């Protein structure tokens, strides 16, 4: 990863006293794939619009290559956007949509407005059509294209201007699951090939983990955690991140000493340390990190209360002393059976208490729609129920 390209410093965005962004600090490196991830209303789209120039932060600075660009209008930024609903021009065909940016005279080094030659425009549009696999579609009207094709026109229209940064605002939200998976790979491939920075907004945690170099988890107008997908998943900073990224059982615990945490009055080995002695903490245990063993060998003993077949595995809900856990297992344990569980030290992750403690991680209200519940009103799109490891 190379040098820093964009920096947001203490960015605040407020509409009529309602604070949408609360002192965002973010550094984006050149050529990286960065994802802003969070539920709707978390401020991720606002952050994107600030970078794109469609909104000016109430306070704070936006730096691009070290230059402050707070009030530079969108048409003077070397940044292009793929809009949520594509925003293709209905009066232009595919070719003219892609050529739109190229036909606008640009100021050259001497400040004189120059137009691109028609041959150059044609060459670049054709090259773009090749990249997004839309050769032969140039004369089509955009209304005659499928959602996936419109999506690719929108990407081509932005990329043909050779921006330093491409902003993507939930670009795959309107596509069906299969197409979305294909487009994820496609986008990743295009980003590698064109060697530019992608800033991607989504509420789909799986999409974020699959595509990104860096994930920025946001909620309530604040950044909750910045890190690689592995960091975010394995070392969530608080209960919100743990719950939003994948499935998590979040249990109150007490840190007895470095590497030793107490849950339900039993002590478990763990790899975390650096907490105060007897500090009350949140403990995250991922459903796939729990091993089911015969009851008498278990570190904890509980009763299976619900079983859901998920194809690759069973999702079972187990009642431990009134607290319900989600456990993913390939072996069927029927409802009502008593089981024991074992957790390896690396399956236990300890977090400091936060404002989100106690809000997430209990599966007592578990239902078939638990993904939607945990994704907190993300809109009508059907959610992928993945987290298969």
């Amino acid at each position: 990863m190379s040098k820093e390209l964009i920096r947001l410093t203490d960015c605040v965005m407020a509409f009529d006293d309602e604070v949408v962004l609360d002192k965002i600090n973010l550094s984006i490196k050149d050529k990286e794939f960065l994802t802003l991830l969070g539920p709707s209303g978390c401020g991720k789209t606002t952050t994107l619009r600030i970078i794109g120039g469609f909104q000016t932060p109430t306070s704070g600075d936006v730096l691009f290559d070290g230059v402050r660009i707070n009030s530079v209008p969108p048409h003077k930024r070397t940044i292009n956007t793929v809009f949520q609903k594509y925003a293709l021009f209905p009066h232009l065909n595919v070719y003219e949509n892609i050529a739109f940016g190229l036909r606008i005279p640009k100021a050259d080094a001497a400040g004189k407005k120059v137009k691109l030659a028609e041959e150059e425009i044609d060459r670049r549009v054709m090259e773009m059509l090749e990249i997004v696999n839309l050769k032969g579609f140039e004369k089509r009207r955009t209304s005659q294209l499928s959602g996936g094709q419109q999506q690719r026109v929108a990407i081509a229209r932005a990329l043909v201007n050779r921006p330093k940064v491409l902003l993507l605002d939930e670009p795959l939200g309107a596509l069906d699951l299969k197409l979305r998976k294909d487009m994820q790979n496609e986008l990743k491939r295009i980003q590698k090939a064109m060697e530019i920075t992608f800033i991607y907004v989504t509420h789909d945690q799986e999409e974020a983990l699959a595509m990104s170099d860096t994930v920025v988890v946001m909620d309530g107008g604040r950044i909750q955690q910045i890190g690689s997908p592995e960091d975010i998943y394995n070392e969530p900073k608080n209960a919100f991140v743990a719950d939003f990224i994948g499935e998590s059982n979040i249990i109150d615990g007490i840190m007895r000493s470095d590497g030793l945490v107490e849950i339900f009055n039993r002590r478990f080995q763990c790899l975390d340390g650096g907490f105060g002695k007897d500090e009350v903490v949140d403990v995250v245990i991922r459903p796939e990190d729990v091993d089911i063993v015969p009851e008498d060998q278990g570190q904890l003993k509980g009763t299976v209360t619900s079983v859901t077949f998920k194809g690759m595995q069973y999702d079972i809900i187990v009642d431990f002393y009134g607290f319900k856990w989600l456990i993913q297992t390939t072996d069927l344990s029927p409802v009502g059976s008593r089981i024991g569980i074992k957790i390896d030290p690396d399956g236990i992750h300890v977090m400091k208490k936060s404002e989100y403690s106690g809000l997430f991680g209990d599966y007592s209200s578990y239902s078939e729609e638990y993904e939607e519940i945990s994704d907190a009103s993300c809109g009508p799109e059907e959610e992928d129920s993945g987290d298969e490891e």
Partner: protein
Amino acid sequence: MRNKLSWFAVPYVVWMAVIVVIPILIMVVYAFTAGGSGGGGLQITAENFTGMSVYASVFLRSFRLALIATLICLLIGYPVSYWMAHEGPGFQRVAMALIMLPMWMNFLLRTYSWMSILENNGLLNQLFQNIGVIALYNQIAPFFVDIRNVFAAHFGGAQIGFVPIEHFQMINTPGAVVLGMVYNYLPFMILPIYSVIVKLDHSLLEAARDLGADRRLVFRKVIFPLSLPGVLSGVTMVFVPSVSTFAISRLLGGGTQMMLGDLIEQQFLGGAYDPHLGAAISMVMMVIVVVCMVVMNHFGEGEEQAVIL
């Protein structure tokens, strides 16, 4: 007719046949026949059309005045629509009410009011008299007449004298007729353009800015092309009634500005009674209207068509 409910449409279909289709057929029959009143029955003929060249000047005047009125409506209507669409919703409601308000008054009444404003002894002339505009004109105009006469002497034109005026001649001029058209039909230009612009997807404008277009280019390359269906629909809705009007030309033109509408009216109700010729002229006008609609639909193809309907 699969649906039982479709039987409810029967009265409407009958109504349409009686009120729309049959009259048009009668008109076609009349247009292609002659005689009748003098005995000997109807004869099929195209004379009604071939003899129409006599009225070429009326056709030309109708189209010229209607075109000028349409152009003025467009020049006023487009900026007004654009400005309205970019104001707040409260402003838009008030502006819309103000535009619609005159239309709730009787059309003839409105036109009569213009008569009393433009008359030789009307409100405007009285105002000009009182604030001295007419006296000022009588002082200044002779100089221009003199200058003109100097040129005329040089290039061999006729000399003219200056006669002081007592009032400006506003009523009974082509200008008064155009003013009446613009005043009466301007809302029909504003409404379709406004409704197209106000519905424009804001993200399209953002996309254009994102791709490097400044405000001027966003207008030229996105807003204007996308508002064309509204413009075309407005042009038709102003042009068609303007070209066929007879009340405006009668009241504000005072018979000096005869238009197609007057001509047709005379054939049916006036002294020049000849319903066959009247029907033929009406048919020619109808063809023009249909051509307008076809052109409009050709440009406005796509979702914007809803606006036209």
